[in-house]
């Protein structure tokens, strides 16, 4: 990343300007051409520095009142295949492999499930276990009861900020 890339990203911390020519507006502030802004953004996207471009929604405000982090203790040789199967399900919005921390924490596969209420989430978790071949695997469902802090992704996208929600 160049110094100019950093200045461009700093201008985008609060989001894209809501004007007809947003990249032109950024270009003006940086003293470069609109074409150069677009080219830099495309490159940053290709390099993965920009992981996603668009709206970040609040699940709760959309009626998804229940969210759970579901954790699974999957044998290491099977975790990649299980992760791919979970990620393919409609109602799974994030899926990661993380380390176990034995003896306190035995789970190595994490996914997020959102639903209108807890019953719906639990039904989806049961369905996920069936479809991902994880019915025999130990799991726990950790419902969230309170959100203390959720800032927009500033420098660094963060897990739940990257969630997508389907709006029926």
């Amino acid at each position, binding site marked *: 990343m160049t110094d100019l890339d950093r200045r461009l990203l700093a201008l985008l911390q609060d989001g894209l300007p809501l004007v007809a020519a947003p990249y032109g507006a950024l270009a003006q502030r940086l003293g470069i051409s609109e074409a150069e802004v677009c080219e830099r953004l495309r490159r940053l996207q290709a390099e993965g520095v920009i992981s*996603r471009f668009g709206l970040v929604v609040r699940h709760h405000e959309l009626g998804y009142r229940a969210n759970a982090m579901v954790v699974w203790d999957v044998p290491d040789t099977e975790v990649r295949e299980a992760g791919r199967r979970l990620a393919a399900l409609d109602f799974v919005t994030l899926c990661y492999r993380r380390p176990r921390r034995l003896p306190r924490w035995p789970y190595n596969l994490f996914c997020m499930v959102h639903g209108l209420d807890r019953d719906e989430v639990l039904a989806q978790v049961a369905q996920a276990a069936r479809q991902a071949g994880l019915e025999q695997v130990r799991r726990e469902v950790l419902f969230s009861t309170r959100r*203390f802090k959720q800032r927009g*992704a500033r420098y660094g996208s963060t897990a739940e900020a990257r969630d997508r929600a389907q709006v029926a």
Partner: protein
Amino acid sequence: MSKALDSTDRAILNALQGGFPIADRPFAIAAAELGLTEPDLIARLRSLLDDGVATRFGPLFNAEAMGGALTLAAISVPEERFEEVAALVNAHPEVAHNYRRCHAFNMWFVVACERPEQVRRVLEEIERESGLPIIDLPKEEEFFLELKLTA
């Protein structure tokens, strides 16, 4: 709480979570695909943000690709200390979000930093301030989702 969403709002929310054009008039392109006018789409986006249905519109940055780092951390907090510990955790600007969950590990938060060594330092500070051990669960692999759009 926001006002009720109409079908146009829903179409915008579904279409614009996954991508946005990089072009001289991007709102015009996105609006055409939604059957809207450019000023209409801009006004709708502004009210989705003002009403709190969406928290942000624009690029999301990947901390790791920028040389930064993040982790998911959990603490098992005694019930009578929950508010106190939540306040000291949330006081760290590197804590991006913090959720209470129903489990022996009842506090779950993400720490995002511009440099990898800062993550360890923030976790150590929180352990010292709270006197409670943290489990540090950095991502080892991400399983990517298919783009999910409702028509």
